[in-house]
């Protein structure tokens, strides 16, 4: 990425407090490689023109990486803040300013001599903003979200880039599921359509590879029950089945509960109904922490703040 940014969350504290960050804006025509793409900051895609703000005075003479969201590699974590996109010549979705818990990512230089006035003000504001985040909670990263498979499909369709569907996609599946995949644009699209709601990873050694750190598996149990693994209705269905008559569906449901309800919050007495009544509004499903239902860090932050206020 270069010295520019776009899609800025201009009303956020990092652009307004204590300094008002002002930028010189340049209207640019949307590049072809942004067409038909969306990102966390452009859920409807970029318009025919878009506005660029300079954080640095000129393009750096070197490589300046940005974190890449690619529509959900990690942005499924509650409380994650997307605050600006870096200007990338590869594709949309490269976040240059973002926060997760106590961590803020700054994707530009910090050298005041190289920053614009707006860039300097934003950097000072970021320090002020983060000074108040000592108690902010988040959850650990375990694996990429299933959206990376979808991205390979999109990349192939929009850019003609074939290695995504021919090499990276099958390479990202556990061996047993590679046989179900046809390495072509059409094959990728068909596979995603059929299997993506039941894909998971992050549970065992089989899900970690050398070249592709995250390897995906399809959950045959969830698929047989017709219960996409990240839907609340599926969790409720498993709980209902778990309390029912012994049989294949009950066994599948119990395996799904074991597979997707984080061990830290599982009921010790196996009373799933009572557990769900207590946890319903406190839990969330997150791919990137290992495909778990777990306590929502934003809810935990709120509960801790309330407890602190009571003291």
């Amino acid at each position, binding site marked *: 990425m270069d010295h520019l940014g776009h899609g800025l969350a201009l009303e956020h504290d990092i652009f307004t407090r204590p*300094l008002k960050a002002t930028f010189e804006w340049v209207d640019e025509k949307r590049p072809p490689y942004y067409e038909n793409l969306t990102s966390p900051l452009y859920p409807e895609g970029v318009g025919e023109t878009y506005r660029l703000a300079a954080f640095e005075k000129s393009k750096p*003479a*070197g490589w300046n*990486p940005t974190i890449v969201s690619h529509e959900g590699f990690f942005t499924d974590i509650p409380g994650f803040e997307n605050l600006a996109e870096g200007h990338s010549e590869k594709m949309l979705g490269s976040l240059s300013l973002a926060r997760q818990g*106590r961590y803020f*990512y700054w994707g530009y230089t910090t*050298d005041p001599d190289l920053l614009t006035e707006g860039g300097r003000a934003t950097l000072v504001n*970021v320090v002020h903003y983060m000074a108040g985040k000592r108690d902010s909670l988040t959850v*650990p*990263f375990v694996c990429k979200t299933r959206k990376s498979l979808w991205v390979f499909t999109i990349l192939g369709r929009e850019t003609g880039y074939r290695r995504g569907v021919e090499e990276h996609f099958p390479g990202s599946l556990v061996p047993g599921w590679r046989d179900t995949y046809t390495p072509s644009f059409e094959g990728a699209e068909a596979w995603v359509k059929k299997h993506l709601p039941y894909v998971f990873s992050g549970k065992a050694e089989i899900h970690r590879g050398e070249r592709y750190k995250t390897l995906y598996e399809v959950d045959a149990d969830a698929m047989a029950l017709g219960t996409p693994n990240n839907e609340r209705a599926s969790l409720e269905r498993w709980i209902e089945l778990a309390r029912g008559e012994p049989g294949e569906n009950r066994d599948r449901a119990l395996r799904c509960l074991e597979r997707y309800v984080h061990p830290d919050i599982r009921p010790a007495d196996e009373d799933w109904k009572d557990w769900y009544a207590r946890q319903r509004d406190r839990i969330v499903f997150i791919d990137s922490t290992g495909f778990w239902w777990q306590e929502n860090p934003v809810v935990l932050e709120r509960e801790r703040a309330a407890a602190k206020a009571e003291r």
Partner: protein
Amino acid sequence: MNSLRLIALVLLGAAHAAGQSPLTVSELPEDAPLAISASATPRELVVRISMAPDWHLYARDVGGGQPVALATSKDSDLVGAGALVLPESADGKLRGSFELRLPLKKSGAGRVLTASLDFMACDPLECRPPMTVTIAGEIGDVPKIEVLLVVDQADDRSKRIVALFAEHGLRTTVTTYATVTLEACDAHDVVLADSKLFRQDLPGTRQLAVKLPKTGTPIVAVGFLGTELVEAHGIAMTSGYI
């Protein structure tokens, strides 16, 4: 206007809770269709306004009434240090409850802040004559934010960062990736883990950056080294970069 006065008291209470110094707002006419409260730190003046139903102020000149203006007085020990921050308003009108924020910097030796707020209050049919209220009070000390700047080596670049932060009331200690400790990180309010462009840091810095202590202090992770250390800390948001 009783309900507006109640709102003003609630807002004043909020200012105390946030650790800011409450300020006195005077010369607001009894029948003014708005309530105003104000508070400040040495770095920022915050004015909270609550409009009566159907009434508004102007954020900018849209051919209606005089836009709101907030300025410190010449004899104030704290003076404006930047543009007034107003809420976004598509039609230029400010309705309901909102805040105005003015960055401050020290000017005099004392702690007294005096400022004036100029505005016109209008409803759909009429505008009241322009009003000016005075905001004044003494500003208490707010502890400076302590920043730990972690770099590959202390050099002119790190000096420039320290100078920028000092200009804005931040106190910075410089250390290196080779020598940084958990105790030093924990003792600061923010850790700024700096990075030059890819492979322009001292050789071996990447290997040191991924070992940055897992502190409870908030971390601003910069550039390439930032992506590496955040990933090493088990945080999702650098699971890929280009």
